[in-house]
């Protein structure tokens, strides 16, 4: 069984402790969200899990066969057009250029890009379109584990919902596991099987919330009522400093 296991993880920058005693497990087909205030070490934790930075203390075991990363900013290569940017993800997988182009075009259409956009450079795309391209690039490889670092934060509501539904469709088929960072609680409730609350200074997990209802069955009412409930939680109030001072 493919799994991501994080055990007793600590991380420092110089003398500042960023993460302290982090433990969790992400199983195949699951969506795990990490929520918390900005600057709480969420991105560092994600980068550690994705092996972008080295683990200092503790253990991360990743047995997923493949993974990809969608960043907060689109991080497209400015000198490549839309299709070549998407196909970049496939270059590591020894797929012929022709096949890569076909697959890139297919997924681009699915993500709401149009054929006239295919030859455009990132500078000629709107922010939302760039984010779609970045998303398509992450998913074209059909990863078994997807790292999402607040990729929806800069998008308008419509586009956000559209991309989330695409994601939910894949989660539903159990073909994708997701480690998801966000500071938007509603987003987390809509998408996650489990939410970890990360408190800042130093980053540590103070509470876990579980949701068993399949993502595709969660309607707005569910999301709103759960959000209202979670916002009453004392740990949440404390972590996000919601109380009036």
């Amino acid at each position, binding site marked *: 069984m493919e799994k991501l296991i994080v055990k007793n993880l600590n991380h420092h920058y110089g003398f500042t402790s960023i993460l302290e005693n982090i433990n969790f497990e992400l199983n195949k087909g699951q969506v795990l969200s990490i929520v918390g205030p900005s600057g709480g070490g969420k991105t560092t934790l994600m*980068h550690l899990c*994705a092996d*972008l930075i080295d683990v200092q203390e503790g253990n991360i075991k990743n047995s997923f066969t493949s993974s*990809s*990363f969608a*960043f907060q*900013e689109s*991080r497209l*290569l*400015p*000198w*490549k057009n839309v299709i070549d940017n998407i196909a*970049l*993800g496939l*270059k*590591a997988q020894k797929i012929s250029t022709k096949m890569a182009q076909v697959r890139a075009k297919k997924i681009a259409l699915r993500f709401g890009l149009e054929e006239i956009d295919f030859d455009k*450079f*990132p*500078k000629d795309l709107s922010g939302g379109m760039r984010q779609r391209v970045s998303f398509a690039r992450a998913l074209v*490889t059909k990863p078994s584990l997807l*790292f999402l670092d607040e990729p929806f934060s800069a998008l308008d509501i419509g586009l956000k919902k559209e991309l989330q539904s695409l994601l939910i469709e894949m989660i539903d088929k159990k073909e994708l596991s997701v480690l998801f960072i966000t500071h938007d609680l509603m987003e987390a409730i809509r998408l996650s099987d489990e939410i970890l609350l990360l408190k800042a200074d130093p980053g540590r997990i103070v509470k876990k919330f579980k949701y068993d209802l399949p993502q595709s069955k969660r309607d707005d009412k569910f999301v709103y009522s759960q959000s209202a409930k979670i916002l009453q939680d004392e740990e949440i109030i404390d972590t996000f400093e919601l109380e009036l001072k």
Partner: protein
Amino acid sequence: MKFVFKILKDFPSYLWSGWGAIASIFLFFACWDLGYQIYGELVLPSPLETLSTLWVMSHNDSVIEDAKITLYRAFFGFGLSVLFGSILGLIAGLFATASIMSRPIVTILVGMPPIAWIVLAMIWFGMGDFTVIFTVVVASFPIVFVGALQGTRTLEGDLKEMGKSFKLPLHVKFLDIYFPHIFSYIFPAWVAALGMAWKIVVMAELLSTSDGIGAALAVARSHLDTPTALALVVIMISSMMFIEYIILEPIKREVELWRN
């Protein structure tokens, strides 16, 4: 291959966009002629006379021989600068220490007037080919070096990280992520270095050799032969313009299509 084809395909429309430039050149000729009418032939020969001298010269074997020699020196020196400047610049850019240490040296090289190099080279190497080529190299090397250094130094961490997250193999990382970025810095540096080489080669020849366009210019000066001097200048400038506008600019346009 696709890339070369695209440059050729866009070439006619690029040429067609040159009418403005041609108009401005003709305006320049008009001002030149005005200068001739005011100051007379000895100070400033008319464009017509200069061009007819140029026509006569272009049938003269010794002038063509001079041009070839100058061309050889300029390109040999430029080639050496490109080769060493690019490689050393890339290496220096990879290491923080090397780039910090190389900065003052580059400042010295850039700040040193080329004429001083010529004098030193004449003392060290005597009169001849080597002195000229040496001067061309010291003058254009720092430009290429700085271009390559900055290209490597400014590689974006974000994009590197993205490449790492996809576990891209090394050659893909180099070709798709590093190379286009570095090239966008290094190519303009090559162009600037070529311009520098072209100017320096004539100056060095004028002072230190008995052949080449620079030497011919010195002879024209001693004979007070202004039309020949101007014709030589026209040769230098028109060849520079040809290289810059007909060869380099179309390449640059294709290469930098993705830029804002």
